[in-house]
C-alpha cells in the first residue's frame, strides 16, 4: 500500500508535479540529446578517420615512425601481407609506399604526403574511392595518374587532366621529380587531409623513387568490424612476435596512430557526463523544494500516520518513494522524447551546413548523425534515481522530525 500511496500522492497536486516532470524531462532531453549529438559527431570523425585516413591497424618499421624516411621499409612485407590476409576478421590489407614530397603546379607548391598504392587492394582498406567528386579513382590501367584532394586542387589551381609535379627523394638520396596526371579529385569531411594527401599507383611511385614495387613502408589493415581491433592487434602481436621483438615492425591501432581522436572521444564522454551531472544537480534543488513543500503541506497527514502507528522507517520510505516516482516519471518522459529526437537525427542527420567550412577544417562533417548511446541512457537513469534518493533525504528527515501530537495540533 506504501507504493500505492506514494504513487497516488504524486498526482495530488497535478500542476506542481507536472512542472517538475517537465523540468526533469527537459533537463534529461538537454543532456541526452547533446550527448547524442556529441557522440554522433565524434563517431563520424572516428569512422571517417578509419575509413579514409588511417584504417583500423597499421604496421610500420619502427625507424620509419621516428623520421618518416622511405628507406625504412617493412622487411619481408609480402610475407607479412599474406599472413595478415589469412586472418578471418580482416577485410582488406594494403601495402603502401608512403613518403613526404613537394607537389607543385605552374602557379604554386605545397608540402604533401604521397601514397603509392595498389588500387584494388586500397579499395578494400580505404573508402576514399567513395569520395571522388570529379573524375574517377585510380586503376591499374591508368598511366602515371593521381587523385588529389579538392583543397589541394584549389590551392595549386589544378583540375582534372592537369599535371601535378611531385618532387621526392629517391632511393639514392637524390631529389627527383615526376609528373602525374590528375584523374580524380576527392573530397572528404577533413579539409586538412584533402590538402595534404596525394595517391598514385604504386608502380609509378616505385619507378620514380627506385624501390621495388613489392616493397613498402606502410601496411594498412581494415577489419570487418572496428570493434575487433583490440582482438586482431593481439593476434598480430602473436603471429609477428619475432619481428616485433627484433624491432623490425611495429603494430599500432587507429587510436595509437591518432591519439588525439581517442582523447577526443574520452573528452566528449567526459563533457557529456559533466553536463548531465550539472543538470541533475540543478534539478535536485527543484525536487528538494517540491518535496519540502509537499511535506510541509501534509504536516497534519504525516502526524496522523505517525499517530496511527506508521513507524519512521515507513514514513521515510513513503517520502523517498514519492521523490523517486517524481524523478523517474520525469526522467522516463525525457528519455522517451530524447530517443525519438536522437533516432530522427540518427536517420536524417542534423544539418550544420551554415558552419560547414569551419567544421570541415577541423575534420568534421557538416551533417551530424546522432548516436544512440545506450550506456549514457543507463547511466542517466541510475544517476536520476541516485539524485532522487539524495534529494528525498532532506524532506524525509523533515517529516521524521514531526511529533504526531504537535503535527496534528498545529493545523487543527
Amino acid at each position, binding site marked *: 500500500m506504501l507504493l500505492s500511496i506514494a504513487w497516488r500522492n504524486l498526482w495530488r497536486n497535478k500542476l506542481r508535479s507536472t512542472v517538475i516532470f517537465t523540468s526533469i524531462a527537459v533537463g534529461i532531453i538537454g543532456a541526452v540529446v547533446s550527448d547524442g549529438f556529441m557522440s554522433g559527431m565524434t563517431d563520424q570523425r572516428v569512422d571517417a578517420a578509419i575509413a579514409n585516413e588511417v584504417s583500423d591497424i597499421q604496421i610500420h618499421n619502427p625507424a620509419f615512425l621516428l623520421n618518416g624516411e622511405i628507406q625504412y621499409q617493412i622487411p619481408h612485407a609480402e610475407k607479412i601481407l599474406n599472413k595478415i590476409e589469412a586472418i578471418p576478421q580482416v577485410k582488406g590489407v594494403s601495402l603502401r609506399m608512403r613518403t613526404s614530397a613537394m607537389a607543385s603546379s605552374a602557379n604554386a607548391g605545397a608540402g604533401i604526403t604521397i601514397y603509392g598504392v595498389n588500387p584494388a587492394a586500397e579499395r578494400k582498406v580505404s573508402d576514399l574511392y567513395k569520395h571522388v567528386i570529379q573524375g574517377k579513382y585510380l586503376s591499374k590501367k591508368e598511366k602515371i595518374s593521381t587523385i588529389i584532394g579538392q583543397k589541394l586542387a584549389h590551392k595549386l589551381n589544378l583540375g582534372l587532366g592537369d599535371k601535378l609535379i611531385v618532387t621526392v627523394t629517391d632511393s639514392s638520396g637524390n631529389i627527383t621529380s615526376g609528373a602525374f596526371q590528375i584523374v580524380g579529385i576527392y573530397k572528404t569531411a577533413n579539409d586538412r587531409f584533402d590538402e595534404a594527401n596525394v595517391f598514385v599507383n604504386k608502380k609509378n611511385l616505385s619507378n620514380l623513387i627506385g624501390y621495388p614495387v613489392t616493397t613498402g613502408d606502410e601496411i594498412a589493415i581494415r577489419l570487418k568490424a572496428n570493434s575487433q581491433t583490440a582482438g586482431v592487434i593481439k593476434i598480430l602481436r602473436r603471429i609477428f612476435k619475432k619481428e616485433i621483438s627484433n624491432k623490425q615492425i611495429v603494430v599500432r591501432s587507429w587510436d595509437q596512430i591518432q591519439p588525439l581522436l581517442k582523447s577526443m572521444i574520452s573528452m566528449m564522454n567526459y563533457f557529456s557526463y559533466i553536463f548531465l551531472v550539472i543538470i541533475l544537480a540543478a534539478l535536485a534543488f527543484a525536487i528538494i523544494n517540491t518535496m519540502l513543500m509537499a511535506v510541509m503541506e501534509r504536516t497534519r497527514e504525516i502526524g496522523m500516520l505517525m499517530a*496511527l502507528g506508521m513507524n519512521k522507517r515507513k514514513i521515510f520510505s513513503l517520502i523517498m518513494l514519492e521523490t523517486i516516482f517524481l524523478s523517474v516519471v520525469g526522467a522516463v518522459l525525457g528519455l522517451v522524447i530524447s530517443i525519438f529526437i536522437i533516432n530522427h537525427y540518427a536517420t536524417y542527420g542534423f544539418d550544420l551546413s551554415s558552419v560547414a567550412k569551419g567544421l570541415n577544417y577541423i575534420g568534421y562533417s557538416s551533417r551530424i548523425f546522432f548516436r544512440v548511446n545506450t550506456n549514457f541512457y543507463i547511466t542517466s537513469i541510475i544517476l536520476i534515481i541516485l539524485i532522487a534518493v539524495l534529494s528525498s533525504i532532506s524532506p524525509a528527515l523533515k517529516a521524521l522530525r514531526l511529533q504526531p501530537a504537535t503535527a496534528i495540533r498545529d493545523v487543527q
Partner: protein
Amino acid sequence: MSIIEAKGIYKIYQETKVPVNALNGVDLKIEKGEFTAIVGPSGSGKTTLLNILGGLDLPTKGDILIENTNLKALSSRQLIDFRLHNIGFVFQAYNLIPVLTALENTEFIMELQKVSKKDRMKKALELLKAVGIADKANHKPGQLSGGQQQRVAVARALASQPRFIIADEPTANLDSRSTNELLEIMAEMNRKYHSTFIFATHDQRVMDKAHRIVTIDDGKIIGDETFERR
C-alpha cells in the same frame, strides 16, 4: 482492573519563553468498556490529556500505565508500535488518507499490523458495514460528506482491535444529524463489542451519551461524574 491509569501527570510546554503548564497533576483511571467524555473550556488541557492517554505525547512528570505498560519506559519506536496495536484514534478533522478509498483507509492500519490481504479486506468491509457506509467503500474521502468521513475514521480506529479509542472533538465539524448518527454508531460499538471510548469534547450531545464525564480546568480534574448507561 483499569485499562488506563494516569498517575500525577504534569505537562509543561517549554516552547515559549514562559513555560505553559498544560496539566497540573492529573490522576485518572479508565476502566474497560467505558464511554468517557473529558470536558472543559478551551485551553483547559483536554487535548493534552487525551494525547498523553493515547501515547501521542509523554508527560513531563508522572506515569501513564496502559494495562501495566508504562508508556514513559518505551522507546520512540516501541511507542509507535504500541499505539499501532493498542490505541485507536478518531480526530476532529477526520484525517483520512486522501488518496485512499474508504475501504483502503480502513484496511490501512491492518496492513501496518501485517494482517493478510484477505483478512483485512473482510474485516474492513465488515466495519464499513457496521458504521453504515459499505456502499461508499470505493469512494475517496473527497467524495464523502464530513459525517461519512468520520464514520470511516471510526471504522479505521476499530480495525486495529485497539484496547481503547481516543476521539478528540470527533463531532466538532459535523451537523446535528451526522453527530447523532456517529454517536449512535460509537455507542453501539461500545455496547456490542465493549469498546472503550475516551472523548475530548465541548459537544453537549456527546456528553449526553457518555456514562462518565471528567471535567478538567487549568490542567486539573475538577469533576468526575459517572452516570447509568444512557
